[in-house]
Structures are given as structure tokens and as C-alpha cells.
């Protein structure tokens, strides 16, 4: 059941028009945030160069089909799909009509690809003087590595994210969910919103250049400054934390069952000791200050593990939270979906997809009180061709059918 409150509630980005030439990871996540908040996003794609996400598992009923990928369904909600073969002799001309129509153009092709097609920023500006163009790449559109071919995980390696993740006695790790593919889209949309404000004031468009490498480095800044201020080269340290102790995932009753506990100040430390009925630790010289606890962290972790390992993780969490100690059970996908907090806040909603059927979708995690998102299922390949080309680009039915017969919409 559609939970849209009523048509009278407007969306935050109503009226904003986006021509989306992006594919795979980072670009589509950015335009999804725009679409979920009411922007009219047309995903311009082609069966000749199919978005790899459409071929990414899992598929509904295990059948590999461009309209059955769960990955695509989750990354492309609320968008319109128009197919356009850019390699067709008339493809670029039609792409330019999208530029004319749009406020914002988003792309994440390889370096120089847009220029070679005659769709570089200078070309776009000639078509529409105040266009905002956004390019998302791994290393940015200038510099010696501008032609670097990579993925979200390459950015994790380059930035130091990998080096600082994992155990000190083992190699670096990269979480399976590429962080760069997640945070760079956020900053792409932030940049778009800021560029729209600038256009409102000055009438000028611009080109925005986002490098995953650079966005990732922003959150590594504490390590860079520790190096430049103190000469310290930080190393991965498991679950430990520079200014908290204990800080880790502790074993609980059951197979592969863990609860995280993170003590950031003296109040929390005293509460923790009370909770595990070890008030003797409060005045134990090994654990009196944060520095003491850091110096004797292994002993401390083992004492805490003794207490947690005989209790279920949800119980450990409950006891800690009740005492005001930050704690969280380590949850799997099912537990996250069933979490009472996630449920009450409706992070996930169900939508009827034309091929997949009833499908659970994520909603944007920033909740705007007066302009809630309106999430629609991801489009099938070319699902909105007629609407997009006739209603949005203003083609006559004759022209549309003519071009279709020429194979331009493949």
C-alpha cells in the first residue's frame, strides 16, 4: 500500500530536472537521493551498453534479467528510464536535447568520454548556458591519475581507509560495502544543491568535479594531521579507539554472537563496572584513567568478555543501555530488518515493482519533516520512453515512432 500522505504535501525537490547519464555504483546512488525527494530524474541508458547493476545479483527467482536485479531496484528508485543508443548517428543530437531540458546533468563515464562524445562541459554550456554538470570519478577529472580506471574499493585502498581497517597483526581490510560508493554520492548531491543555490543568486551554472579518493581522504584527516603535527603514522587497531576504552565487539552466548560496547568517559566506565558487578575495577590501578585502561586493554577486554560470553547479545545490550553505557548488538541483515527502531521509523517500505512484484525498498535516511520522500519502484529498461520523449522533450508521436524505427532507442 502506498503510504504517500496526500498529493497536497509537496516534495523537497519538486520541479528539479535531472538528466542522468551515470551508471553502476556512485552516480546512480546520487540521483536516487534526488529522485526519492521529488526531482524528475531521467536515467538515460541503453541495451547496447547496459548498466552493469542491471546484471548484478540477486535476481528475482534467480532469473538473470535486466528488470529483475535487486541491486538495480535498490539503487534506482523513483527514476524514469529512457533508452538511448549514444553510438547511433543521431544519439548525441538527442542527448543534447536532454541537456536543453535539464537543470542538472550527472555522469560518471571514464575520463574524457563525455568530451569525445561532444558532451563535455564546454559543449553542454553552449547548449544551455546555466547547466550544472556533475562528474563523479575515482580520482577526479584532472591530475596525473585522471585516467585511472577503478572502483569504490580502489578509492578505499588509495585513501588509507583500507590501511586503517582491520587487525594490527594482519593485513588491511575493505568492508564489502564500498564506502566511497556511498559517501561520494552524498557529497555529489550536496554539491548539486549548493550549485543550484548559487545559480539562483547569480544565474550561473557550473561543473562540479568529485573524486572518491578525495572524499574518502576527508574522513581520514585525523590520521593525516597526527602525521603532520606529531609525525605519527597511524595503524589499524582492530576494534580499539584512540579515546575510548573498553571499545570493542565482545563475544556473547550463541554462535558468532557479539555485542559492541564503547566507553567514552568516566561516568560510563563506572556504570559499566556496576553493571557487570565488578565495582572493584573502579579503583583498580590498572583501569583508573583512560590512559590506564589503554595501557591494560587486553586484561580489561578479557574481564569484560568473561561477563558477556555467558549472556545473549540482546541482553548484554539492554543491560548496558539501561545503565547509560553505549552498546549495540552486532546484527545480521534479518535482525536489522526486524529491529523495532528501524521498523517504527519505516526505513524500509514495500513497493510493487512491475516485474519483481512486491519488493522491500530502502528510503532515504535523512527525514525531512514537511517534505517526506516519495519512493517509487525502480524503472524497467526503457519503461518511460514514450512519456520522456514526447511529454518531456516535446517530440511528436510521428517523430518518436520514426526514431524508434531507426533503432535509436535501443
Amino acid at each position, binding site marked *: 500500500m502506498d503510504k504517500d500522505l496526500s498529493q497536497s504535501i509537496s516534495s523537497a525537490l519538486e520541479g528539479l530536472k535531472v538528466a542522468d547519464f551515470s551508471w553502476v555504483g556512485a552516480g546512480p546512488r546520487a540521483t536516487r537521493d534526488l529522485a526519492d525527494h521529488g526531482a524528475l530524474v531521467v536515467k538515460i541508458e541503453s541495451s547496447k551498453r547496459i548498466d552493469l547493476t542491471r546484471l548484478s545479483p540477486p535476481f528475482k527467482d534467480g532469473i538473470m534479467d535486466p528488470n529483475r536485479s535487486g541491486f538495480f531496484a535498490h539503487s534506482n528508485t523513483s527514476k524514469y528510464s529512457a533508452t538511448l543508443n549514444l553510438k547511433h548517428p543521431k544519439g548525441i543530437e538527442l542527448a543534447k536535447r536532454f541537456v536543453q531540458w535539464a537543470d542538472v546533468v550527472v555522469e560518471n563515464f571514464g575520463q574524457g568520454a563525455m568530451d569525445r562524445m561532444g558532451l563535455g562541459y564546454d559543449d553542454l554550456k553552449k547548449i544551455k548556458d546555466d547547466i550544472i554538470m556533475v562528474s563523479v570519478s575515482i580520482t577526479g577529472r584532472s591530475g596525473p591519475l585522471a585516467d585511472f580506471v577503478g572502483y569504490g574499493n580502489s578509492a578505499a585502498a588509495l585513501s588509507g581507509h583500507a590501511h586503517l581497517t582491520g587487525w594490527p597483526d594482519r593485513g588491511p581490510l575493505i568492508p564489502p560495502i564500498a564506502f566511497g560508493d556511498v559517501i561520494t554520492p552524498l557529497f555529489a548531491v550536496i554539491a548539486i544543491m549548493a550549485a543550484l543555490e548559487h545559480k539562483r543568486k547569480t544565474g550561473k551554472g557550473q561543473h562540479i568535479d568529485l573524486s572518491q579518493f578525495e572524499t574518502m581522504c576527508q574522513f581520514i584527516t585525523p590520521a593525516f594531521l597526527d602525521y603532520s603535527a606529531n609525525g605519527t603514522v597511524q595503524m589499524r587497531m582492530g576494534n580499539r579507539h584512540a579515546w575510548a576504552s573498553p571499545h570493542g565487539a565482545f563475544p556473547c552466548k550463541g554462535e558468532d554472537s557479539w555485542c559492541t560496547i564503547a566507553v567514552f568517559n568516566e561516568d560510563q566506565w563506572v556504570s559499566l563496572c556496576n553493571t557487570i558487578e565488578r565495582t572493584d575495577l573502579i579503583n583498580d590501578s590498572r583501569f583508573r584513567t583512560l590512559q590506564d585502561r589503554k595501557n591494560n586493554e587486553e586484561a580489561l577486554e578479557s574481564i569484560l568478555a568473561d561477563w558477556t560470553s555467558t549472556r545473549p547479545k540482546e541482553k548484554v545490550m539492554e543491560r548496558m543501555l539501561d545503565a547509560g553505557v553505549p552498546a549495540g548488538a552486532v546484527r545480521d541483515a534479518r535482525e536489522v530488518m526486524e529491529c523495532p527502531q528501524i521498523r*517504527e521509523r519505516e526505513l524500509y517500505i514495500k513497493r510493487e515493482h512491475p516485474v519483481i512484484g512486491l519488493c522491500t525498498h530502502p528510503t532515504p535516511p535523512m527525514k525531512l519533516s514537511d517534505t517526506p520522500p516519495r519512493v517509487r519502484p525502480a524503472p524497467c529498461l526503457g519503461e518511460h520512453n514514450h512519456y520522456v520523449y514526447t511529454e518531456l522533450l516535446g517530440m511528436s508521436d510521428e517523430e518518436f515512432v520514426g526514431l524508434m524505427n531507426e533503432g535509436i532507442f535501443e
Partner: protein
Amino acid sequence: MTNRLLQGFRALDMTDEKGFVCGKVLAAMGVDVIKVERPGGDSSRNIPPFVDNDPDPEKCLLWLIYNTDKRGITLNLETAKGQDLFKELVKVSDFIIESFTPGYLESIGLDYDALSRLNRRIIMTSLTPFGQKGPYSRFKGGELIASAMSGVLLSNGYADRAPVKEALDANYFHANGAAVLGSVMAHYHREATGEGQQVDVSAQEVSASRNTNNILPYLFDKRMLKRSGDCQWLGLNPARWIWECKDGYVWHNLMGGKVGAPANRALSQWMDEDGIENPLREIKDWNTFDRSTVTMEEKTVREKAIAEFFLRHTKKELDTEGRRRGINAAVANTPDEVVEHPQLKARNYWVELEHAELGRSMQYPGHFFLSTETTTKIQRRAPLVGEHNKAVYQELLGLSDSEVEELKDNGVI
């Protein structure tokens, strides 16, 4: 000052260390962000590490890093006079950013409903561990907790050890990004309608929104993926993607189909030139290489050979020669290597900010993105305790010298 994208707007930043980044990003885009500290200075200034390892509140690295470009005032929000002053500031501001436990602002009369009556354009963005509503809303949290409660943590690490967190405060950086995005989308709507609103960001939800790789196999196939260390699940078996080289580590993956073919061929050719065992040679058509059907036996043989290949080469070789050949490997840089990285230098990524009080300058990452129209670089070091009290209370609110002195004496500012 040069023209900035969001110049002309003002934000009041009441966050603790979990929410500093949100205001930093707004400030980098030109918003006049005023960081509100309690008299004497924010408690987060005591968080290590410090410049020269000297535990001085003006030398706290975390404070310095995440409060760039902001102005700083002190204000005691628990006094009636302090609350009045804050309300006066709200009347001349566009955004409020806060990270208090839900309910606290209401208890001191500074909740969204009260403040929006003073300024209906105001946007209030709240960033908390679990959001403003729901059964967990008042629980304490943090970076590791958000990661655990969103399912992200369970997917990272080795099967023989506890799940392991990722670098630094990754999940809270993500949550801060979401808070900025909510704020600027609400801003777009406000400029169209004249109406502000509330933006509610839960760190748990932000992390969960990222957990696509684990949520989908569960939703579609009722399958739970196990964490697999330096490997990634790609089909039948986890495929190795972190490799030890002669002097460190690299990321490398055999990608499938036409997209991966050139890099896979290049690697195979380099292995041949090295004269080592090369089972990749048996793959005749890389264009049809499908990662999801690789068997355990094939995987073991290929990965053994690739591991041997990487151990023969240094990071530098794999970076320069590897890029020339296009083998799709990326060096896992250490922080000191990142600072010297030619790509970042070429794009003028680093900015040197003067710290006259410390008698030195320090180098910061300069921008979140590049714009052809305006500078997006950070420009000013973080504020000292109460540094802009005079500018804000006198110039912005029109208080006199003696009024400011009185506020100081009464412990309000």
C-alpha cells in the same frame, strides 16, 4: 573573501564531536557557521590526540580538524539569559545543527516548535545515534554502535575473529554527510516556499542504508553472507581482493565480462613476462569471464599464482607500471603516503592553515569537491574558545561593551 556557493546564510552549530563534520561542510561552502560552546570550552576539546601530544584544549586535533571555517562563541544554554541570547541568534540565522539527546532542547525551551515560531524559515537538523523518535531514540550510541546495529559491522573481518570496525569514525562521517544533505535539500525547498522544517538523521539508519550487499541476499534469497576477511563474495565462493606485495598491500580483483577483460589480460601478460606459473593463460576469452561461476578449485589455483605475482613486486611498481599496463590494482596507501600522493598534490588538495597561537601551520585536506565557479577550499582554522564573542554578540546582536562584560561576569558567555 571570494564568492562561495552558500554565502549569505548562517548556521548555529550546537553539536558535540559526533556532529562537527556537518557544520564543517556547510562552512566550507560559505555558510557562516557559529559553533556554540559552553563557557570555558567544549568538553570535546579534551579528546586526544593533541598537537605536539600536549593535552591543551586549544591543541585538540579533532576540534581543529572538524571546526575549520567556523566562528566560535561561548554561551550557557542552561541559564534563562543564555536561552534568550540564543533565541536572538535564531532570528538572524538560517540553520541550526544539534546532536543532543532527544528531549533535551525541549526541556530548556529551545526545541524546533519554539524556535520556528521565532523564525519560520529556520531549518533544524538533528543528528543522533537513533533519531528523534522510536523506542531507541534516547539510547546512547557512537560510531561502533551504529556500525553494529546496522549490520555493516558483521560483514567486515575474518571468520575466526570478532567482526572488526573500519577506519576511524567512518560511520559517523557518513551520518554527518547525510545531515548536510538533509539540510541543503530542506534549504532548496525553503528558498522556493519560505518555510523551514526539521531534519531528523539517525546514525543507525544512515549506516543501514549502506548495507545493500547484505540486505539484498537476505531479501531475495534468504541468504546470509558470512564475513570473509580479505575476500569478497562474488558468487559461489569468496574471491580474494587484498594482496600482500613486496613492501605492503594492494587491492586487486579479477572483474568479469568486457569491462574487466582488458585489465585481466594485462595481468596475465605481465605474469607471463615474469615467467611464473600462470593458470590465467587458460582463460581464452576474457570477454565472457563470469566471476559468479568460478569453482573453488579454479579459484585456489589462480589465487595462488596471483599471490606469488604480487609478492614479486613493490607498491611503486604496481602503481606506476601497473597503471601503465592497466592491471586494475590499487595500492593500500599509508597516511604518510597519501600526504605525498602526486594526484592529490596535482589537484591542490592540501591547504596549509596558519596557527599563529601555536607558532606553526598545519596541512589539511582542502575540499570536498571542485567547482568551476567558486572556491570550495577551507580557509580558516578552527576557533579558539570564545574567539568571536565580540563579533557575534556586539556586531550581530548589537550588545554594548558593558553588556558583554556583564554576561561574562554572570557566567552566561
